[in-house]
């Protein structure tokens, strides 16, 4: 169950609409290292974690990634606000207008739709947490690339916030991995579920 907060986690402001940049930043909505994939990955992997602490961490971060997806959605929407079909065409995103008008869709910067192939769940906590750490690094670098691709200071500011969150999440997943490795080294062999005797 979730408690819903009506405000965004961080304000989303744009200086001016920029359909060209919307086409690029949509990758953090539905691209391989985007927020949809991140949230689903963590909220799914949580079930096969051996400690309550790890489950809680994945639930927390997965929830936050949903809030980030909301921020990216607001950003794409604002960047395309009032844009005409010709504006989309000029930005090389005419296909988006034809299929979705001003609606959003989960694709990467090249229009490739989101796929469950972007995420994994092995049911092994060390493998899954290592994947999560890699995912945070990939998302961090994607934000760095995106920040290079825009001149809008408001957009840079908001993307920098999301970038910093990736760094924080990496630290938390790393600490969780420390814990899990210690836990498993001690006494526990994890089979993905508690075996009933």
């Amino acid at each position, binding site marked *: 169950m979730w408690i819903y907060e009506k405000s965004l986690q961080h304000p989303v402001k744009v200086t001016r609409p920029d359909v060209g940049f919307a086409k690029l930043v949509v990758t953090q909505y539905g691209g391989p290292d985007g927020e949809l994939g991140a949230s689903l990955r963590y909220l799914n992997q949580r079930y096969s974690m051996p400690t309550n602490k790890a489950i809680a961490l994945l639930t927390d971060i997965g929830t936050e990634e949903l809030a980030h997806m909301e921020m990216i959605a607001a950003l794409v929407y604002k960047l395309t606000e009032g844009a005409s079909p010709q504006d989309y065409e000029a930005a090389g995103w005419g296909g988006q207008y034809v299929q979705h008008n001003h609606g959003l869709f989960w694709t990467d910067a090249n229009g490739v739709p989101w796929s469950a192939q972007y995420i994994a769940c092995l049911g092994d906590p060390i493998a899954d947490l290592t994947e999560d*750490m890699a995912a945070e690094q990939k998302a961090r670098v994607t934000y760095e690339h995106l920040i290079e691709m825009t001149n809008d200071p408001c957009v840079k500011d908001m993307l920098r916030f999301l970038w*910093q*969150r990736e760094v*924080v999440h990496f630290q938390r997943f790393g600490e969780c*991995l*420390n814990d899990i490795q210690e836990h498993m*080294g001690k006494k526990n062999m994890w089979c993905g579920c508690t075996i009933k005797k």
Partner: protein
Amino acid sequence: MKRKVYNPQAEEKDEPIEIKDQPIEIKVERVEENDDREELERDSMNMWNMNEKYNCQKTNVKMMLAHAYVPWQCYDEAFSPQEALKKGTLFPSLYGVYPIPR
């Protein structure tokens, strides 16, 4: 004052022990909001920060080959809530560990 503390023995039993009458002081230094120049200085100072203060007690665990580890973070200082919400982290020690994209 009751406070849950980390206790390796407690962890084995999977239940935290509550210690009474043993108040634990956590000193939290507040880093007040800087002006832009100071902020940039801090950023360059923290860049690729390999700070020795992260040798937490907890970090000295036995490490195994072919396993990945991240140093434990110590809670020693904090940004003001306003600045933390702006920056994306409460912790100065986590701010600028990777070069901040501009």
